[in-house]
Each structure stands twice: as structure tokens, then as C-alpha cells.
């Protein structure tokens, strides 16, 4: 029974000057699977495609094998040309004869012809054994859930509200604002945070799209992109919502420098956050203030730079100098982390305001002198090579942000990845807010320590990503790839032979497989979530009895391809 047409593209001589199409066609004509082999000048440019198509139509053959260049070159165009003329994608298979054979074996035409024949044979068995995954479509729920009402979460919620998307804004504490509530000014513009926060809260209140849930605690998150099911309690009330996308903006915590630099032992050794609290109460009047940077950061326990501590110290140093120009302010640092245009300008501003920067080495940190109160800070200035003793009555320890404790809990519920410190991890730098779960986005300090300005930018960006998910409306699972058009199906289980061993569930990188209890029996069977599955094939490799298969590229076709390879 002949069921496949082979289209051989000459590529204007590029392929058939090495591969002898006469030999190939002679062999192919003997194959009973092939109805005919057609040789054309080019399939991508499409001058004689229409003639070819009518020829295929006449013969009544459905499946087409193209022998042309690679898909990355112009092969995709050739496939597209056939699809435009009414041949289904599932019935087309592209074999790379140009990059994969003709061009790399130009010194051996006979061998290349043989190899081309093998490649075509492999393609034929692939096409013959190819099955089609059944597609499903899912309607995206139009709401978005934002976890955390700090600057990032507020920005995300407001942006989505402007889009006309209903937002469920969940907050652990009773009032929104997050870290913005704790600080009085934000860098680098030194603008007061309270008016901005009030403006936000006002907008939240006015917006008919944002629903704010204070004192909320998430108990479970289930589902997948477009169709999450979240149960949480807000105050005493139990709530349940079905958002289409989730934005995590749960923020971070401040590290308390217990035991470092005599913190807790001397009265005026305070952390940066305590200084902010003092500013909240009123002006801070001291004679000499010393800031120590990298307290508990860039060390063995926390080998990361927390981004915000240097600019925060600069902000408060400038403020102290401006409130009281007689105060001497010293910042003891290891590197001044002010990258970029605005922050470098901020650093220069601090220098021009008379803030003194002294560099110390990691292995020779400053020492605070004094019995009951601070008398002086002794520091080895690494640049001048002298040890300096700075009389001081206030030492501010600049501490990093550390990840929230419940990140782990949230990550487990959503199957997200945390980095080695405990912050949420993105998939890769090109997609910095997307996580390994589609439809879940991270922003703000939950992702990595950021300033309030950056958190707002990230919140907006995450809102954009979430909006592009929920505005999709109805989506077919096949389009659920990180690259449209390149996903080729999803895994399929044959329930009768599934032993329920759970191997597939253990290795699935997208958490797409669950074990389901068979009714009335103490036995389980795997179930594939087609929306989550990305067709990587990991489950296929570990399945002990071949129950799990990729219909498009099943084990049978792999075996047959191997047989035909030489």
C-alpha cells in the first residue's frame, strides 16, 4: 500500500550536485510505501509548488515527506508552503538533506547518496509511525492573583486594574504597603514615601478591579496556567478564587545583625532599619555617624550582594548631613555598589555633601571601641594603608535583605524553584520574571533584593506578563509552548498497562503528571496534564514498560529509525 509522497528539493543544484537524485529515486520507486517521488527545483520559493500539490491531490496520497534543507534554514518555509495549500502539519515530515548531508559530504557523492537514502528511510518510518496527540482547549480565567501588597504587588495590581483585569491582592498583614511603610524616603530622588503610598492606596480603593484581602493566609494552590484554584483565609473568612495567573510579590525580610559588630550589646549600634524607624519619629541628631556596609552580606553565610544596602546608606547619610551639616558621616564599605547612571549620580551627590567613604578589606573589618557606650570605630583604611580611629556616637549596620521564611511553602505549593539562598528563581535571564510554571510570575524582592523603584518596575512588568496570559481567552494546549509552533504534542498514557510506579511523576520537570487512584482498587494510574506538558520526553525515558509514549515520536518509530539508520 503506497501512502507517502516524497518531495525532493534540488535547491537549485545545491543538493543534487552531491546527492545523485537518480539513484535515490530509483531505490525509492522500489519501495512499496511510496506512491511517487517528485523532484522539484525549490520548495521554499514556491514556483512549482502548485503543480506539485495538484500532482499529490490527484494521486490521493495524504502524507508528504520533504527532502530539503534544515528547518532552521528554509525548510520551515517549505513546510509552511505546503500547509498554506491545505496539507496538514501532522502529515508532513521534513528530512534535512542539505545541511545534514549534501553540504557536509561533498567529497564523497556516493556515500552521500547512500546516506540520503538512509535519512529518507528514517523519515519514512517516522512519518508512518507518527500518531497525533489529542488536543484540548482551555479557557483562561480572566482574574489574576497578586501575592503581597508591597510596592511591587501594588504596582502590579494597579497596572492590571488599568487593563480592566480583576485582581485579587492578598496581603499577610492588615494594611498594604510592605516595606514602604517602614521607610520614610526612597532613593535616589529622596522623595517621601508616605504621599506615594497614600496615592497608591487611594487608587486601590477607587479601582473597581482590585480586591484587597488583608490578613490572608494561603492554604492551597492547585491547577495550571489559566486555571489555578486557590484557597486562602482572609481574617476569619475562608475564600476560594480561580485566577488565570499568579504574581508573587511577597517581598523579603531584613536581616538582623545579632552578634555582629556588638549589635544588641551597645545601645547606639543599630541596624539600617532601626535608623529608618528613628527617622520616622523625627530627626536624628548625632555628632559622628558611622555606617558599616556588608554586615552579614557578601560573607560565607550569605555570599551575595543585596543591592539595596549601599544606596540606602548613602540616602540616610545624605539626610543626616543635610539635617545637621555639623555631623560627620562616614560610610565604611567594601565596594560602593551604585551601578548605573542614577545611582552613580547619587554616590557623587553623597561625596559632594561631604559624606566620607572609607574602604575596608573583608578580612580586616572595623572594630567598635568602648565599654558601655560607643567611643570610637577603628578601621584599617585599605586605600591609604593607615588605621583610622573615628570618634563616633552612632554606628549603623547596613544589613542585607533575606528571603521570607514561607517562600519554601509557597514554592512547594506551586512547584517553583528557589535559589540557594531562598529567593524565587526565574527560568533564564532573557525571561527574568517567568518561573518554571507557566502563568506564575515573580517580581520585587521575592525574586531578588531590589529598591522600591525597581520593585515597581518589576511589578508592572510582571503585570504585563500576567495580562498577556489572561487576555488570551481560549487557548489550545498545542500552542502552550514557550515557542509557538514548535511544540509537537504531549505525552500519552495507556491506562491499561500503567502500573502506577510513579517514575514519570518523579522526573517531570513541569509537574504535569499525577497519580490517580483507580476507583475501588488499591492501584494507581498516571495522568498527564496536557496544559502543563511540554513534550520533553523525560517521562517516556523512565517508563519501565513503555506505557508512556510521545504519540508524535514513539518508541516504535525510534526503533525503526535505528534499524534504518545504516
Amino acid at each position, binding site marked *: 500500500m503506497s501512502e507517502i509522497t516524497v518531495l525532493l528539493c534540488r535547491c537549485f543544484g545545491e543538493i543534487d550536485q552531491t546527492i545523485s537524485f537518480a539513484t535515490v529515486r530509483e531505490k525509492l520507486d522500489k519501495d512499496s510505501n511510496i506512491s511517487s517521488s517528485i523532484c522539484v527545483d*525549490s520548495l521554499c520559493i514556491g514556483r512549482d509548488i502548485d503543480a506539485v500539490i495538484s500532482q499529490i491531490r490527484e494521486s490521493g496520497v495524504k502524507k508528504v515527506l520533504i527532502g530539503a534543507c534544515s528547518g532552521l534554514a528554509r525548510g520551515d518555509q517549505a513546510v509552511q508552503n505546503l500547509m498554506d495549500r491545505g496539507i496538514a502539519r501532522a502529515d508532513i515530515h521534513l528530512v534535512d538533506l542539505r545541511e545534514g548531508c549534501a553540504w557536509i559530504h561533498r567529497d564523497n557523492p556516493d556515500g552521500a547518496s547512500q546516506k540520503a537514502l538512509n535519512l529518507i528511510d528514517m523519515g519514512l518510518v517516522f512519518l508512518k509511525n507518527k500518531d497525533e496527540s489529542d488536543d484540548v482547549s482551555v479557557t483562561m480565567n480572566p482574574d489574576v492573583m497578586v501575592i503581597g501588597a508591597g510596592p511591587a504587588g501594588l504596582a502590579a495590581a494597579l497596572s492590571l486594574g488599568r487593563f480592566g483585569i480583576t485582581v485579587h491582592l492578598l496581603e499577610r498583614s492588615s494594611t498594604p504597603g510592605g516595606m514602604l511603610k517602614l521607610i520614610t524616603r526612597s532613593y535616589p530622588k529622596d522623595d517621601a514615601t508616605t504621599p506615594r503610598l497614600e496615592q497608591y492606596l487611594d487608587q486601590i480603593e477607587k479601582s473597581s478591579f482590585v480586591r484587597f484581602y488583608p490578613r490572608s493566609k494561603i492554604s492551597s494552590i492547585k491547577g495550571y496556567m489559566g486555571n489555578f484554584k486557590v484557597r486562602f483565609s482572609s481574617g476569619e473568612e475562608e475564600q476560594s478564587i480561580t485566577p488565570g495567573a499568579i504574581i508573587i510579590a511577597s517581598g523579603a525580610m531584613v536581616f538582623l545583625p545579632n552578634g555582629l559588630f556588638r549589635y544588641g550589646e551597645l545601645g547606639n549600634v543599630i541596624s539600617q532599619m532601626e535608623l529608618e524607624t528613628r527617622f520616622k519619629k523625627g530627626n536624628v541628631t548625632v555628632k559622628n555617624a558611622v555606617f558599616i556596609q556588608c554586615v552579614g552580606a557578601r560573607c560565607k553565610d550569605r555570599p551575595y550582594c543585596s543591592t539595596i544596602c549601599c544606596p540606602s546608606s548613602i540616602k540616610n547619610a545624605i539626610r543626616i548631613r543635610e539635617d545637621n551639616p555639623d555631623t560627620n558621616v562616614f560610610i565604611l564599605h567594601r565596594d560602593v555598589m551604585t551601578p548605573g547612571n542614577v545611582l552613580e549620580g547619587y554616590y557623587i551627590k553623597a561625596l559632594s555633601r561631604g559624606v566620607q567613604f572609607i574602604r575596608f578589606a573583608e578580612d580586616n573589618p572595623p572594630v567598635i571601641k568602648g565599654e558601655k557606650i560607643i567611643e570610637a570605630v577603628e578601621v584599617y583604611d585599605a586605600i591609604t594603608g593607615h588605621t583610622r580611629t573615628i570618634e563616633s556616637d552612632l554606628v549603623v549596620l547596613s544589613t542585607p535583605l533575606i528571603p521570607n521564611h514561607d517562600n519554601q511553602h509557597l514554592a512547594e505549593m506551586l512547584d517553583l524553584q528557589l535559589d540557594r539562598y531562598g529567593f524565587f528563581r526565574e527560568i533564564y535571564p532573557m525571561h527574568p520574571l517567568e518561573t518554571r510554571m507557566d502563568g506564575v510570575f515573580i517580581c520585587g524582592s521575592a525574586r531578588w533584593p531590589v529598591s522600591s523603584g525597581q520593585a515597581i518596575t518589576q511589578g508592572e512588568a510582571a503585570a504585563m506578563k500576567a495580562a498577556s496570559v489572561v487576555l488570551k481567552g481560549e487557548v489550545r494546549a498545542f500552542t502552550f509552548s514557550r515557542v509557538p509552533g514548535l511544540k509537537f504534542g504531549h505525552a500519552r498514557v495507556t491506562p491499561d498497562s500503567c502500573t502506577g510506579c510513579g517514575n514519570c511523576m518523579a522526573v517531570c520537570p513541569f509537574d504535569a503528571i499525577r497519580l490517580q487512584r483507580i476507583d475501588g482498587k488499591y492501584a494507581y494510574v498516571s495522568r498527564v496534564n496536557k496544559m502543563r506538558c511540554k513534550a520533553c520526553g523525560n517521562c517516556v525515558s523512565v517508563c519501565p514498560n513503555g506505557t508512556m509514549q510521545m504519540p508524535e515520536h514513539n518508541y516504535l518509530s525510534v526503533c525503526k529509525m535505528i534499524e534504518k539508520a545504516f
Partner: protein
Amino acid sequence: MMSRNDEHNEFLIVGGGVAGITAALDLAETGRDVQLVDTAAFLGGQVAKLDKIYPTDHCAFCPLWTDIKKVRDHPRITVHTSSTLQNISEKDGQYTIVINKVHPVIDESLCIYCRRCLQECSAGAVRPLWEHASPPSFFIDTSICTNCGDCVDICPTGAIDLNRTAVEIVLTVSDIIWATGFNEVDLTPLPEFGIGTHPDIMTSLEFEEWTAEAGRNEGSIIRKSNGNKPQNIAFIQCAGARDQRMLPYCSAVCCMHALKQAQWVKRREPNVVCCIFYTDLRTVGRDYYEYAIRQLEGMGVHLIRGRPGLIYALPDGDGIAVTYENTMTQTREIARFDMVVLNGNLRPSQAQTVEGARGPSLDSEGFVDTTRDDLSRFAGGFTLEPADIAESVIQGSSAAIRVATKTAYKR
């Protein structure tokens, strides 16, 4: 969901780098029409020219090409490559934009990459478009081309038309996102860096291209002057940056860029001595500091705090002398290096307008001033603020939502 007004909005994005691509995709995915303009012949901007990206050490092109493919295939995005802005005029809240689109002499949609034009061309004007361009294609460097017409005759598909001229395209858009990225500043006004005096003194982007795995040297570390393996390489940070004479700001990406390059030199040639001369090692992102630590401990890259005072070619015509003060030991030293890589001379690209045309408002350093309530309200990427890939992508997305919801955000 969307108000009626929004549905008819069309947006212009200037710049097809990572920020522009992201903004375009985000807007298109939420149902907006986008016009994407770039001066280069291909999308991807500066990231497409990089060999590796930090901190993952993966190839830069892998994550990028799928996004470029998405942009190219998206029905709502119109891409104008090799195009420059000619004129922008504003009327009733709509911008009318005239772009000058230079059609490539070789039509990409017809080129089958057969190389016949390349072999035929005696002037050497035919070059591959880009190592990983998909579909691959050639372009003709019109500055070298002699218009002999040999390539036109030999091209089997008729893709070459030497008379192809530029066309003017008029677009009407409701808002513009500037994502023009950055370019390198010429360092010759600062003679202490010795650029131009020795072929082995190069800028970091030149070095990236020189040692790229997809480049002509296939990832081998060799000197430009004589093709030998260098004994040692100096990476000079803040060359031209954080310098009141040239760029007063910090370019943000160069510290990690130098660490990445030093790491790849070490991976390929473990015996080459790498020294990084830095002022502050600004490693603020996720895993960046650990990346730096790994350099110090694992690979034996030397970090020297100090700014070289003078870099010059030695009289023997071979080595390069670097005089510097190691500020951590307070010693003045002079060292001989085989190669010198200058990092930091990055400047926001001026928007690609022809002279006299209206562009975005810029601040004193040349960054787009988004606080003004005019056509410069929306920007993302390096042109807004020195930013690495992740930061640019975030800014691109955030500019996209601001432009879609018409909210200017005062930074």
C-alpha cells in the same frame, strides 16, 4: 475588557534589542499592533553579538532566537529592519513617523544561502548576515560593492537586485517606546588607554567578537597582532566610565562582563594570566557575587583595585605596558601584558533619527528623560538606564504596560 479606544492603538518601538523585542511581544500578545524599527539588518541588538551571557555562562543566542522567531512570525508585529527614523510629527495625540527603509540588496526571503554570490564576488562585498540568523542569508556591503552585477547573474533565485533603493514608509502610531540600547564610545580622546596604538588593545565588545565561538577564531584565544597565544591579558574596568571627562556614570554591566570574559579565557586557556583592574566590583544581581568569588578562588583570576594611569605599546612592538597603582597595597607598578581589554565605554545610543528630526528628550548624560510629558515618556533598556539583559527585559515589559495603559510613571 479593553476599551474601544485601545483596540485601535498602534505603537512604535524603536530598537530591536532585547528590551524592544520583549515590549513588542508583550504588546502584541495583549492584542495591540506594533511596528518595530531597527537600524540593523537583523533583530537582537547587542545581545545577538555576544558570545556568552552571565551569570549562566550559556550562549547568548540560544534564548534569543526563539524570541526573535516569535516576533518575526507574530501577526500583530511588523518588523522594519535596516530602517532609520526620518521625521516625527505630532497631531491630535497621534504621531506620524516617516521611516527610511533600506531594502537589503539580497532579498532574505529568496536567499537560499548557496554561496554562489560569495564565490563570484571579486570585491569581497558579500558577507553572511549573522552567524545564527534563521533563515540564513547574505548581505552586500554597499560601500565595497563595485556594482559589477556578477552576483545578479549567478543568483539562481533572483534574490539580488543591485538597484534596490530605500523607500519611505509613513506610520501613524499613538505612542513610541524608545529602546535604542547602547553603543561604544570612541576612546581615542583619552590617550592614556592607548587605543589605536597597538592591535591588541581592544574594547570588550571587540574582544567578545574576536574570541567568540561562532566567530572567526572559533573561540580560541589568540592575539590580534601575531596570532599567537597570549601569556597574559589585562581587563581594564571603567575605561571612559565614571570619568568626568567622558562618561560620568557607571555602565553597570562591565564588571560582570569582564568577569565573564576572564572566566571564558581561563576555561579555554587555563595558563593565560588574567588580571582585572577595577574600581568597585559591582556585582549586584542574583549569583553575580558568587560568580566573582568563583573567579577569585577557582580560576585564579587576579583582581587588582586600581585604575591604570597609562597604557602604551612597548618599543619592541610586541607587548603592552600597563602602569598602575595597586590601591590596596599602595604600590606603584608597571606590568607587561600581551592583550588589553578596555571595559566600560558604553553610551546610550542616540535615537536613530536623522539630523534635525525630533527625537526623545535626553538628560545631560544622553539617557531618555521619561519624566517629560512628551514623546519621550516611554523607554526601556540601556537607553533609559544602564542595564543588563534581565534588567532591560524587565524595563521593556514595564514600558509596554505603561504604554498600553497610558500611564506615565515618574521615576
